[in-house]
């Protein structure tokens, strides 16, 4: 908006990110991607370029903004294989922001992240920086999920239309109204193909009090802290995995070597099954992980132990770096971490959308991991 904007937050309350924070966020978002979420690398490059040009990435706690402030979430949509060849223009998100402000005839006060896992952890930061806005320290998944309707905002009643989708050519598409979140997802996917396989999508603004209540809290702070812990542990040659567990209330549930990986197609999704043979304290045990974009189900000796929406994270035993589903290969030595998801993903309402049944496992009942024992950060 060209006219002077009345700030709905105290500028002293923002945390301005540094280059080191971005490096940590890349790793932390990779870990919270639970195997999926896309590679944050190109997003980080765009963020670094914006930083060099003088834009600031400002993160703001969800309770540090006026309750009626307008907040807009944004994320990338499209095929990752196209995205590595046809790079983004860089200001698609900013054009979404301006188009939304025109559409609703009101300024947006802050940006929101849909998923803190993978590439979409960084996309909204760049938009916020270019637009001069803070990004709220929360997200709609606390991890990565494959589809738009799987955010806590959608699950708890926010209708994501009207939405705005912008591509690198300058096309602006407005979805005025979708009768359901699934319809919205379906129409947006069809449109992105016409746009060349990649675009940015901003969803209908929410009021800050709604975001505060239904967003997964402190996502950026947590993702950065996780990445920092890995970087620091590697520097002083301590166990990075223990550092991640200490921060996230997670626990290492298995140490194993990948002994088999089967991939196949089911209902249009590339799904897979991973088999692990235990070592160290897990010698003699076997484990399996079911995959669909992300790691969904963990079984030990054939028995289900952890299921989506709780987080199943695979880390390289030696480096602590996250292993994504496309990196999996025979012989890798991995640590499996189980991290309790936020309570917002555990309600009956949420489990309908993000529980085992929603991913094609109607026979499996979600049995929650014990709640996280978080250390004071």
């Amino acid at each position: 908006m060209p006219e002077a904007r009345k700030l709905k937050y105290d500028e002293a309350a923002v945390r301005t990110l540094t280059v080191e924070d971005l490096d940590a966020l890349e790793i932390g978002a990779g870990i919270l991607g639970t195997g999926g979420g896309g590679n944050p690398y190109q997003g980080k490059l765009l963020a670094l370029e914006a930083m060099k040009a003088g834009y600031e990435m400002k993160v703001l706690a969800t309770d540090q903004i006026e309750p009626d402030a307008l907040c807009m979430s944004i994320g990338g949509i499209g095929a990752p294989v196209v995205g590595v060849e046809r790079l983004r223009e860089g200001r698609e998100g900013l054009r979404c922001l301006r188009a939304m402000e025109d559409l609703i005839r009101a300024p947006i006060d802050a940006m929101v992240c849909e998923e803190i896992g993978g590439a979409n952890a960084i996309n909204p930061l760049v938009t916020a920086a270019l637009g001069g806005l803070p990004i709220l320290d929360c997200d709609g998944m606390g991890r990565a999920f494959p589809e738009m309707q799987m955010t806590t905002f959608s699950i708890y009643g926010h209708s994501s239309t009207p939405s705005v989708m912008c591509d690198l050519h300058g096309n602006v598409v407005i979805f005025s109204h979708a009768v359901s979140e699934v319809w919205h997802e379906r129409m947006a996917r069809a449109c992105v193909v016409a746009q060349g396989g990649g675009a940015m999508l901003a969803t209908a603004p929410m009021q800050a009090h709604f975001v505060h209540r239904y967003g997964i809290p402190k996502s950026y702070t947590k993702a950065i802290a996780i990445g920092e812990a890995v970087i620091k542990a590697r520097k002083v040659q301590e166990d990075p995995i223990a550092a991640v567990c200490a921060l996230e209330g997670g626990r290492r549930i298995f140490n194993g070597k990948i002994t088999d990986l089967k991939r196949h197609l089911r209902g249009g999704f590339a799904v897979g099954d991973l088999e692990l043979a235990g070592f160290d304290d897990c010698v003699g045990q076997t484990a399996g992980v079911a995959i669909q974009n992300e790691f969904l189900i963990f079984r030990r000796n054939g028995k289900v132990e952890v299921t989506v929406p709780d987080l199943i994270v695979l880390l390289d035993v030696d480096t602590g770096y996250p292993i994504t589903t496309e990196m999996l290969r025979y012989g890798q030595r991995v640590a499996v971490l189980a991290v309790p998801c936020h309570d917002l993903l555990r309600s009956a309402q949420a489990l309908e959308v993000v529980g085992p049944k929603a991913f094609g496992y109607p026979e499996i009942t979600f049995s929650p991991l014990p709640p996280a024992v978080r250390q004071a950060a």
Partner: protein
Amino acid sequence: MYRVGIDVGGTNTDAVVLHAKKVLAGVKASTTEDVTSGVIEALEAVITASGIDRQRIAAVMIGTTHFTNAVIERRHMEEVAAIRLGLPSGAGLPPMVDWPDDVREIVGNHGYQVRGGYEFDGRELSPLDEDEIVRIAGDIRAKGLKAAAVTCVFSGINDAMEVRTKDILQQHCPGLPVVMSKDIGRHGLLARESAAIMNASLLSLADRTVAAFGKALVAAGITCPFYITQNDGTLMAADVVRAFPVLTFASGPTNSMRGAAFLTGIKDAVVVDVGGTTSDVGSLSHGFPRQASMTVDIGGVRTNFRMPDVFSIGLGGGSLVVQCDNGIVVGPKSVGYRLRQDALCFGGKTLTATDIAVASGKADVGEKAFVTSLARPLVDAAAAKINAMLEACVERSRISSTPVPVIAVGGGSILMPNRIGELDVIRPENFAVANAVGAAIAQISGETDRVFSLIDGRTRESALAVAEAEAREKAIAAGALAETLEVIEREDTPLAYLPGNATRIHVKVVGEMGGHDA
């Protein structure tokens, strides 16, 4: 007729003579600063050792780390124009955006972004801005740049804009070498572009190096053609290297793996090449190293060359063995080339992995008496640690649970136990010069890797057939015998999230070099 293989490594230059698939002789010489005198020394030594008539050498194959080292050491790189066709795509990420500052400065940081490029389905992303190319040509003349690299979005689908840009540049800058990204790398713009830029910056060095190798051979009285090995284990005619030096990157590990396959006759195995400081471990499949699927880092720059999937650990014959609070640590520090002065078994003062091998009775080098005083628990613990390190990287390099043999090559391979986990270890004759053997037996390849649109009656099968025909044509043009060609890689990947019409197809064929009977 004979074949001579030469491997120019960082420390040693190895040479072998092959006749009818038999190694007649293998020698090691020191690599020299000027490279050529080391090559001549190794050549003379191996000709003497094998007693052959040098007039009967049919071909010389050279593996070299020269171009990789140039980038790692930031030497001999020229300033180039880096031109990307694709605006508005990528506007926020200019060419060389993720390069370390020092190497970006060395190639001059002359990045240009121009309207152009294609979409995944072959549509134009933007029409090519030819006026802008003419303007850049003027800039190249004014700045006196030595070469240009052109990268177009989705040039794997349509190369017309890269070709057109090259024509315009050469029309306005006669004689300017122009590298097109479609000839260099694969799908993935930033990495392919970086590879093309690096290639352009190494063209003068390539020219000088190939000329120097040629002179060294003439000086040794050898007049046959010579070839340089590529990172996929196949050969490039010397003249082709003048245009594509980057394709030699990381050919060393490939040569040692191919040499290991040749020396043992085994086509599916894990190969461990143990040097003085590090060990390289990779998987052989059908006699060729498995290729890396991810980007590969060269001197801090992300590229997507065809590279072997090799995993390195800091464990070699010279690795220091240190006892500390939480047990025994072996490597990554090493005495390196000073092994024969510093190791205990050679009368030195440093406890190395080689000493452990000697003390535990695994190897017989130096003086066993010098290591008999080592405490037994220390020797056992260190030997166990070395075995565990080797086992972990062998496991990591395996491609399936099917048991395959482990082939040990390289000067430091005395460290290898006779079994690793459930796998047998084989140490072939001439293991120490496996690199040079790999160079001597290299084949010729042809490859296609691009996206096909399966429309207008084109099926997956017909697209694969077209790709295979293209790959065969390329191999024959490079000197392969048509009747020996076989397909070693053939894969198709439908592009996810998109309508089923776009499929990426990758076909690679290899064959024996024609023209002689070695």
